[in-house]
């Protein structure tokens, strides 16, 4: 009997040992022959294009390639996409690959992993080329933290000159593209070269797994740091022929905070030199055939907006009530109607579904928290949302015009949304068209009650004296 606990512990250790082996196995077999990283810092949304040439040195085929991110990067990571290139030169096509975050255990110093699943397992001695795109938000730190109206905005960007990777990297180069040629300072990790708007780190040879060499680039970036702290989009479906969208924005300028006074005269007369980091124009891309567009805030209608419509899209160009400087905020709402037949479809199994675009209609904008509310018509059942990425979902009930039991609302919440998230999503539901008659019958019965009341009044004798 005394042997049994010992045996159990032994089995446990064996399992632990096995899991360690499984987790550490990818780093031993793979090697990156060549890594090229292009970091685009022209806007406040940082795009990193990574080209990896991976070779399998091990004996067993593997279909998993891991990408590593430092904890700071992982926190601000909005999108990670990977693709494999097939064909040569002009016939090059990109096949998207599945990318999944890998749970604990993390790597050394809290390194977070993402796992890329290859289409076909990589055999012994074979190589493949991966194209990875990842997007970082809120990763440019303004320095100085506060600037006056006439100053231009300088920011810090922190990264590593050497690619953080769980694999041995044979050769690598990093290119950093800044918006303007004004670069105050940058860390030199030989060989480092700067030409115009481009900084080149590398080529570096033979770096062991998890090598890291921090670099700091201090440069000018006057692009609008438009951040929507919270955006609530309410999409209300009416089977009587319309989809009504209301978007509530809480916009902020996330760049260097404004210091001192704001001079409207200086801002207006020297528009090229004054308030260069501020912004006053915003562009929202709306679907085609949009109608009844309105743009207002708590005070009332804001008249400074223009709508251009064509067959492919509608563009709403609008100005907030005041130009936005660093740290300033603006709250407003945009509403519009859309024709039902463009967005609502019936699937072959008889279900109805809404096909709408996720994300924020504003161009070049980060949304810290995006809440999409799809208000289904009264009487819809079994709502189910189909979205290509992870979101928080829950259901609510909303009461609108002529509602008795309330409308089912599918709420989809996501943090850290960038323009790359503007992809279609679907909400499926069951709906019996007979429920459409509920509203007119409700109105008709109210009128009928009125008539019945007058009939009853004229038929009942309320007089005390007999006639």
């Amino acid at each position, binding site marked *: 009997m005394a042997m049994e606990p010992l045996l159990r512990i032994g089995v446990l250790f064996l399992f632990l040992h096995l899991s360690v082996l499984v987790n550490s196995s990818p780093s031993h077999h793979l090697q990156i022959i060549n890594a090229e990283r292009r970091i685009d810092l022209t806007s406040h949304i940082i795009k990193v294009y990574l080209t990896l040439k991976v070779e399998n040195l091990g004996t067993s085929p593997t279909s998993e390639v891991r990408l590593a991110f430092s904890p700071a990067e992982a926190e601000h990571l909005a999108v990670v996409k990977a693709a494999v290139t097939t064909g040569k030169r002009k016939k090059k096509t990109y096949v998207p690959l599945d990318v999944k975050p890998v749970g604990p255990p993390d790597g050394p110093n809290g390194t977070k992993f993402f796992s890329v699943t290859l289409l076909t397992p990589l055999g012994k001695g074979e190589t493949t080329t991966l194209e990875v795109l990842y997007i970082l938000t809120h990763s440019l730190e303004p320095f100085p933290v506060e600037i006056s109206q006439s100053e231009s905005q300088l920011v810090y960007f922190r990264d590593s000159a050497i690619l953080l990777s769980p694999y041995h990297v044979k050769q690598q180069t990093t290119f950093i593209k800044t918006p303007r040629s004004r670069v105050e300072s940058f860390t030199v990790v030989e060989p480092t070269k700067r030409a115009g708007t481009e900084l080149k780190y590398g080529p570096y040879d033979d770096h062991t797994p998890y090598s890291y060499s921090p670099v700091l680039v201090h440069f000018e970036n006057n692009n609008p740091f438009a951040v929507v702290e919270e955006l609530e989009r309410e999409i209300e479906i009416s089977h009587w022929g319309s989809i009504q969208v209301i978007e509530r924005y809480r916009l902020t300028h996330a760049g260097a905070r404004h210091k001192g006074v704001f001079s409207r005269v200086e801002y207006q007369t020297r528009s090229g030199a004054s308030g260069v980091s501020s912004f006053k124009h915003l562009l929202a891309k709306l679907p085609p055939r949009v109608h009844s567009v309105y743009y207002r805030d708590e005070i009332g209608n804001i008249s400074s907006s223009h709508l251009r419509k064509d067959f492919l899209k509608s563009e709403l160009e609008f100005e907030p009530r005041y130009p936005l400087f660093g740290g300033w905020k603006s709250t407003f709402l945009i509403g519009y109607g859309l024709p039902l037949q463009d967005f609502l*479809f019936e699937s072959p199994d008889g279900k109805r579904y809404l096909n709408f675009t996720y994300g924020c209609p504003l161009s070049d904008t980060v949304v810290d928290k995006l809440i999409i509310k799809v208000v289904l018509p009264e009487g819809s059942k079994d709502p189910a949302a189909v979205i290509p990425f992870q979101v928080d979902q829950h259901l609510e009930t909303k009461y609108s015009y002529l509602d008795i039991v309330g409308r089912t609302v599918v709420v989809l919440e996501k943090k850290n949304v960038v323009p790359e998230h503007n992809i279609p999503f679907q909400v499926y539901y069951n709906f019996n068209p007979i429920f459409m008659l509920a509203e007119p019958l409700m109105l008709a019965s109210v009128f009928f009650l009125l008539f019945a009341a007058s009939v009853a009044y004229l038929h009942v004798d309320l007089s005390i004296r007999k006639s």
Partner: protein
Amino acid sequence: MAPKAIASPIPDSLYPTLSVFTLAIGLILTASFFIYEATSSRKTRNLTQELATGAVASVFLGFGSLFLLLASGVYV
């Protein structure tokens, strides 16, 4: 099978016209209902006729007011 787009049962450009006509018919029927109520005495009144006129008028007024709501942009 390709997904089929769902449109409204009545083209939404027809809503203003429809609301004018159905409301007009509904109001005429309402008027005839009240004229009947006022002109007939308690003994000559026919309950089925009263209720029938009222029912038809309320259906027209009900749909008319719905179309009016839809035409004015309140999509219920």
